[in-house]
């Protein structure tokens, strides 16, 4: 039994790390988005130049940031909750909410997105689909492949949350404070 819970714990920690690293890496794109958009403005007003693909690259980065960053955001506890009741719950009750929520709300969503988007991205690959704009970016299937990738990462982070919750419920870990680190940054 002890081995089993230790295994659960280390699996959850590993999954957390995956979310963390992927989010930290993808967050650099936000800086790049600022830079490239400013560059687009500069090129247009100073040099009278405009490239569709450069502009599209910002859209791509934006999509990748929030899709791939979703698991990272979840790991940081930054997805908003309606916390009127949740805030006052015991850690055990919170663990129940998180376990049941993951099983019945998160998994159905991410798995449906994952399986429905696999075909969607695959079709795009088969046609070697390119941007509809003339002069746009070529490999549109890469952007479409971001959907199943993000769904996979979210499913893994969901698994981690479920494991953490079970560990709290069987009394192995005391549970963590579930307040987001940047909740107050909400617009």
């Amino acid at each position, binding site marked *: 039994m002890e081995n089993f819970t230790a295994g659960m714990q280390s699996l959850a920690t590993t999954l957390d790390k995956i979310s963390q690293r992927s989010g930290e890496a993808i967050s650099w794109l936000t800086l790049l988005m600022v830079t490239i958009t400013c560059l687009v403005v500069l090129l247009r007003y100073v040099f009278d130049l405009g490239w569709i693909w450069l502009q599209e690259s910002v859209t791509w980065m934006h999509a990748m940031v929030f899709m791939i960053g979703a698991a990272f955001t979840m790991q940081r506890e930054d997805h908003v909750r309606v916390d009127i009741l949740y805030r006052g719950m015991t850690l055990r009750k919170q663990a129940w909410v998180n376990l049941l929520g993951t099983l019945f709300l998160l998994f159905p*969503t991410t798995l449906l997105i994952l399986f429905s988007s696999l075909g969607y991205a695959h079709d795009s690959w088969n046609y070697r689909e390119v941007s509809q704009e003339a002069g746009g970016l070529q490999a549109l299937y890469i952007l479409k492949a971001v959907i199943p990738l993000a769904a996979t990462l979210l499913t893994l982070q969901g698994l981690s949350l479920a494991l953490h919750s079970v560990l709290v419920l069987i009394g192995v870990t005391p549970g963590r404070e579930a307040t987001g680190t940047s909740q107050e940054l909400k617009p």
Partner: protein
Amino acid sequence: MSYAALLLFFGVIVVLMAGFPVAFSLAGTALIFAFGGIVLGVFDPNFLFTLPSRLFGVMTNDTLMAVPLFVFMGIMLERSQIAETLLDTLSLLFGTLRGGLGIAVTIVGMLLAASTGIVGATVVTMGLLSLPTMLKRGYDPRLATGTICASGTLGQIIPPSIILVLLGDVLSSAYQQSQISRGIFNPKTVTVGDLFVGALLPGLLLVSLYILFIMIYALLKPESMPAASPELRQGLSGLQLGKRVVLVLLPPLSLILAVLGSIIAGVATPTEAAAVGALGATLLAISRRQLNLDRLRDVMRGTTSVSSMVFLILIGASVFSLVFRGFGGDEAVRHLLLQLPGGALGAMVAVMLVMFLLGFVLDFIEITFVVVPIVGPVLLSMGLDPVWLGVMIAINLQTSFLTPPFGFALFYLRGVAPPQIKTSDIYIGAMPFVAIQLLALCLIAIWPELATWLPEVIYGN
């Protein structure tokens, strides 16, 4: 059929109350209903097959690309601690006036809110910075907390505001839809820029009303907000003080004006303006020696997080509205609103009331993405002006976040207020500002030109 949609709506609210993240609660509950509907043969599974292309639509929505860039700018400004110097200097300027510190707090709150657009951070920052000073100067704790909460929520209405970007995107598709449903196939459009311009006067109206209230209160109850003694200025001459005021006000003001100005003048899209604003905020942070690698990482990660949070709610809400529509909910809401007595006015009042109540449990983002797409097309097809509607929704929700006992802004302040401040003080302090908000709503309802005049002047018809 529409009973299922009604059930879904209440089901989602019940599930949301449990406290699992909103994005997954919205999508998950809708999917459970959809599966149930498929099993019972009352829901067409084909609705679900459009999911990936809807998702892709969210990913490639160009209007909403402004959101992460505005978030970047906001977090960068928040981290570069402009609030401190602004508050120090402005309280020097107004401090010797009776009620002057209150006015200074309102103005700093407005500037901070406008430039960062982040309500929580503004309330928290102002609560930490100005509440202790106000209390030390002998201000009535109720007035002090009310002022901070109210000016903190201004970030939602005063452009450039992230919320107005979201609302602008949703309203623009609702507007198209309402016109196409009336057989207008060459529809007029409404843009984020229109909404920014439209919200400008109402936002300034609110600030003026706040300041007016503080001034009147200072006349009626002078002991509630004593003026500081003239020694506060430490022998600074008027000219020196003037120079300092200009120096601290210049960077944030010019940033706001540059971002807003370029959008209004039509030289930049909101996305481009936001990126330039983010660059400006970064340069400002560097010039104030507030930027290092750690802080940059912090800003980038915060941006990723907030942006993911917003867009996942949008995704969750679009799954929800897909299923809601699949059950015929859109039609049901349309019938309901059309049957209300009083025509457009009756429908508008009902919608505003429902949104106000939903604002107690849901965030601006959720209401924008879940409720506005459902009711927006109906209201607009009754002939309401989209800019006016957007401004009314924004002020309505801002009011909701100020209203005890559930207002978000009040919770944020409670979190940082010293323990000797009673929660009831914060609640009572917010009341007059809630009244001001309602007054502003009435004024804009009576004179819609407050919201629609400026966009017409700038953009013509």
